[in-house]
């Protein structure tokens, strides 16, 4: 069993911090919206999704694709779009960032919606981004073979 499965409101956000967060969010938006079509969830996982925002998924999946990806890789809800996670997988493969896909992402804290993810990292509410993934293949192998029963 995994112990911490939800992002907690810890420490809680004060009214003053929200004001500051809004200011920071302005700068964050300027970068993240044009580059990643950021949905401002405040709990950024871009670094483990090969820098494609997973929150563009209609179901807002944080842990990989649902079972409805069509055979051509398009989304089950909007057939005119590619499945966000289909794109994430192939980009991850290209950038050699497969190992982060094995992590279970915590349950989203909706209180962080429309707050600055940078500030939330600084306040240790959410995990810090992993900019570089070294030795991806070995890491995947280690995760898989970490099984004593095999």
């Amino acid at each position, binding site marked *: *069993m*995994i112990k911490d*499965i*939800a992002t907690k409101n810890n420490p809680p956000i004060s009214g003053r911090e929200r004001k500051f967060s809004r200011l920071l969010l302005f700068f964050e938006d300027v970068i993240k919206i044009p580059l990643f079509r950021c949905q401002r969830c405040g709990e950024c996982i871009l670094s483990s999704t090969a820098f494609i925002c997973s929150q563009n998924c*209609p*179901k*807002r*999946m*944080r*842990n*990989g*694709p*649902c*079972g*409805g*990806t*069509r*055979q051509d*890789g398009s989304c*089950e*809800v909007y057939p005119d779009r590619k499945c966000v*996670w*289909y794109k994430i*997988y*192939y980009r991850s493969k290209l950038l050699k960032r497969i190992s982060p*896909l*094995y992590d*279970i*992402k*915590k*349950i*989203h804290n*909706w209180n962080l919606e429309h707050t600055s993810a940078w500030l939330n990292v600084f306040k240790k509410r959410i995990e810090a981004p992993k900019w570089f993934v070294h030795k991806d293949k070995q890491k995947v192998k280690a995760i*898989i073979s970490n*099984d004593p*029963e*095999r």
Partner: protein
Amino acid sequence: MTLKDKIASDRFIVCAEIGPPQSCDGDVIREKSKHFKGYVDAVNITDNQTAVVRLSSIASAKILLDEGLEPIMQMTCRDRNRLAIQSDLLGAAALGIHNVLCLTGDYPTFGDQPEAKGVFDLDSIQLIATVAKMNSGFLLSDHEMNKAPEFLIGAAANPFAPPFEMRIIRLYKKVEAGAHFIQTQPVFDLEIFTRWMERITYLGLHKKTAILAGVMAVKSAKTLILMQKKVPGVKIDKQYIERMKAASDPEEEGVKIALEIIKILKEIKGVRGIHLMPYLWESITPTIVREAGLSIIS
């Protein structure tokens, strides 16, 4: 013998599925359950399948329980936030329902009320982790319960949707989160399924979780074609559609195909059982179970 014991033992498991009616008529479920009694180990109760309002899965599961069958209650994240999910799970446990299948759920636009808001507060993997946490005696708020539920946690897998490798990662995460058994989408493409199972056994996941392969029996070629077109993530081998089209008695051919698939599935290493989904055709279940040589000890 409960499903939990059966999974712990070495027995070949047979599950089936009932879709509750779009009314408050509980007799429909009682009527359908007659086809399953004595033939299957447990019966899935769908939770507002394809985003269409139906009799609730908890109530239906309770009806099945009273009929002497073991229900597997499906729980989707589409209609409930984390509060409702936890309270519904506690309610189910209090009623004696101990099997839960954790799903993300179809998007509301697939149903007859596409205007509805999809909740998706959790996804299926987070739901599995939530149930596992509740089993250990804690709610998501870290509140310690006086009495912990004892759920057998199920999850779904779709080996046929792309990208293939991502499906393995998803299964790995589901097992990591605490899934005790996995039910797959209906197998109509044995080549992909065999490849998927090879990867699963290579990773040793089949030892940590019981894989139940989905088997669907259909009445006509039309159903198969419709499924391929309308249900995303389903892949059907062309030969089955052609065989159904060419058959003089499509119902008989449908059963024959299902039996053939079961025979092959039984031989695949790591497959612990099957999950029967006769599409609008519950009455065929006894025939399939009997002819496939599967016996149930209750």
